């Protein structure tokens, strides 16, 4: 079992970067190609996997005696139908390359043709699940810089996929050199200089997995959700546990039962923590095995990773408009951070994860190498001042008032059922407790809030529990939105949004003093506000 080809790839690059012909095995210039027939083996496996839950239910139903023979026979029939449909789908799925386009025809009953202009292809992702890998297959996802939708070719052979990747990205970067990007007000010529420029040398590795980073895995919150879910499922069996005993136990047994309850709670906590550590570490290893982040010759960024399912993502560097550094509060304790790229045309929110939870220092170094500028991820930012603090605190407390009001109505005015047992001070307790919590969160949000501008990037940091620092290339800023709510207007604050095509399509600096906002926008995109500044 070999992994995906090494990042250097086969030397399929033709000498002349004008318009290279499609490589052999990818498809002739005009012929419609089917995906690999080996996909016919993948479909039954998938069908069976998707039918497994109903099948198990049916089998259980049958063995319990009240079995319904209709379902007993129907399930296999559905499975066969699913396989048949998969075969038909394979039969009717074809793709080809013309001189300008990649075209994909799909659909059994309703036919559909998807096309992507070859010059506009900005990213190629290759993904192989374990089934794919056994059969030597790969799924390729091709993204154009404009749409969020990607063209999926599920079932290329490994060689086809790797030559497809090299070919497609070569085509588009060759086109990029000819056609200088639009000289928009926000400096598009800068990109052209970067992509068409001198970077035609060696591949350089920006980052490689270091197993010392594994210690950050338990601090990632995503796995907590998984473990909590599992505990929730186990909780379904909680009825069988002798917990009800504690309510009737008024005598000596009561003490024993209470102790048992304590032990049970402590045990459950230990199980959750252990489960969390195990699950998070395992998912870290599965996802990030063999991670390598490479800047390829010709200005492309490629990540490869994965233990069972291998993933390779290649993005044209000009389409990476910035990075986002995320620090959850648990990760902050251990000085860890995560790194994500903000790009256009890579699907799924326009973000591509570059680094797993890793030491903040590494994240900053890799981020800076990617941005080709030192500072955005380490520099001191400008805060938004005392009025922003006031605004954040006040707006944070609306939720407190609402919750307290919600508690007050049943406590003071409803004397029915369970509510009658609520003592009079419940709303006050809610007010104080939630109020303190919100105050802490708001203070944190204000302390983290800040912005800066470097020679090439706009930097904005936000967040209380999850601190995120977004770095956006100034050339990637499309336009600006200055929003002032009623209360913000009275304080001279605004929410400044830089609109962009990359990532979440916006970078927002909330509660920024209006003067600062306008200065920032003016400096980041010279000329955009000209004539409208007072």
């Amino acid at each position: 079992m070999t992994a995906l080809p090494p990042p250097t790839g086969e030397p399929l690059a033709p000498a002349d970067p004008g318009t290279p012909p499609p490589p052999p095995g990818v498809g002739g210039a005009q012929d419609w190609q089917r995906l690999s027939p080996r996909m016919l083996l993948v479909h039954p496996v998938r069908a069976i996997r998707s039918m497994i839950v109903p099948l198990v239910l049916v089998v259980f139903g049958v063995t319990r005696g009240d079995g319904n023979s209709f379902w007993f026979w129907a399930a296999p029939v559905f499975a066969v139908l699913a396989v048949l449909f998969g075969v038909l789908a394979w039969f009717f799925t074809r793709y080809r390359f013309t001189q300008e386009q990649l075209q994909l025809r799909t659909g059994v009953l309703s036919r559909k043709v998807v096309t992507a202009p070859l010059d506009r292809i900005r990213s190629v992702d290759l993904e192989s699940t374990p089934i794919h890998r056994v059969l030597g297959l790969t799924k390729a996802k091709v993204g154009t810089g404009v749409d969020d939708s990607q063209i999926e070719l599920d079932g290329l052979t490994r060689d086809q996929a790797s030559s497809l990747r090299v070919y497609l990205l070569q085509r588009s970067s060759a086109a990029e050199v000819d056609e200088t990007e639009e000289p928009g007000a926000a400096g598009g010529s800068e990109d052209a200089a970067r992509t068409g420029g001198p970077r035609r040398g060696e591949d350089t590795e920006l980052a490689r997995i270091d197993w010392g980073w594994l210690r950050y895995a338990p601090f990632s919150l995503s796995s907590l959700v998984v473990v909590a879910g599992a505990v929730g499922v186990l909780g379904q069996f909680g009825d069988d546990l002798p917990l009800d005993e504690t309510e009737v136990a008024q005598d000596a047994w009561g003490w024993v039962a209470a102790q048992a309850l304590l032990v049970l709670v402590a045990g459950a906590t230990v199980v959750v923590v252990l489960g969390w550590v195990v699950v998070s570490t395992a998912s870290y290893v599965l996802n990030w095995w063999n991670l390598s982040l490479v800047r390829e010759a010709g200005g492309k960024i490629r990540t490869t990773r994965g233990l069972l399912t291998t993933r390779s993502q290649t993005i044209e560097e000009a389409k990476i408009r910035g990075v986002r550094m995320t620090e959850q509060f648990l990760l902050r304790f251990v000085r860890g951070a995560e790194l994500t790229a903000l790009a256009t045309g890579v699907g799924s929110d326009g973000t591509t994860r570059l680094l797993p939870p890793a030491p903040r220092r590494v994240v900053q170094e890799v981020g800076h190498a990617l941005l080709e500028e030192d500072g955005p991820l380490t520099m001191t930012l400008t805060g938004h001042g005392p009025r922003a603090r006031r605004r954040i605190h006040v707006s944070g407390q609306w939720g407190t008032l609402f919750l307290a009001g919600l508690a007050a109505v049943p406590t003071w005015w409803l004397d029915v059922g369970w509510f009658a047992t609520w003592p009079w001070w419940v709303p006050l307790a809610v007010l104080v407790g939630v109020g303190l919590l919100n105050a802490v969160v708001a203070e944190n949000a204000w302390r983290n809030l800040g912005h800066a501008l470097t020679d090439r990037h706009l930097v904005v940091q936000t967040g209380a529990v999850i601190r995120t620092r977004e770095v956006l290339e100034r050339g990637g800023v499309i336009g600006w939105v200055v929003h002032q709510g009623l209360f913000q207007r009275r304080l001279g604050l605004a929410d400044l949004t830089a609109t962009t095509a990359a990532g979440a399509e916006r970078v927002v600096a909330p509660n920024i003093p209006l003067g600062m906002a306008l200065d920032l926008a003016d400096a980041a995109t010279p000329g955009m506000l000209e004539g409208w500044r007072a």
Partner: protein
Amino acid sequence: MTVTQPSSVPDAAPLHEPAHQVSPRAVRYWALQGFLGAVVVWGVLFAVYWFVPDGVQRWLGPVFVAILVYTVVEQALEPIIRYRRTRWEVTGERVFAQTGWLSRDQRIAPLSRVQTVDTERGPLMRIFRLANVTVTTASAAGPIRLTCLDTDVADRVTAELARVTGQTRGDAT
């Protein structure tokens, strides 16, 4: 990691408002639209009041009266204020729109980044011969709406924007 707070934050003047106002007929359109919305709200309020028991009516009544008064005041003020604050401008290379009646939303985008220009007329808007022009860029966060323009103006603006953006090359991301 660190954030330093500025020593002083001077007050700053907002951006100049865009040059053009929307069609004066927009006031009547907003008034009618608001009235139709308010009628629905009033209907719901009366229906609820009719069906709740007497004990609840006693304290629900004042709340509903407050809501009624608010909607009436809003009906009276909103269209006029909105008319004064909704403005737009298209210069040679940029488009700038301001909306909002209590809040203020100012959106700016260069025409070189514009991807589509749509004109839209709802049934109610057609009565008043109004149209919205929506200018979208490659960012989902940045559509700029020039609301309630006179249809002739809207057509002219659309044609002009289409002409200018047609000259742009590249994919405008």
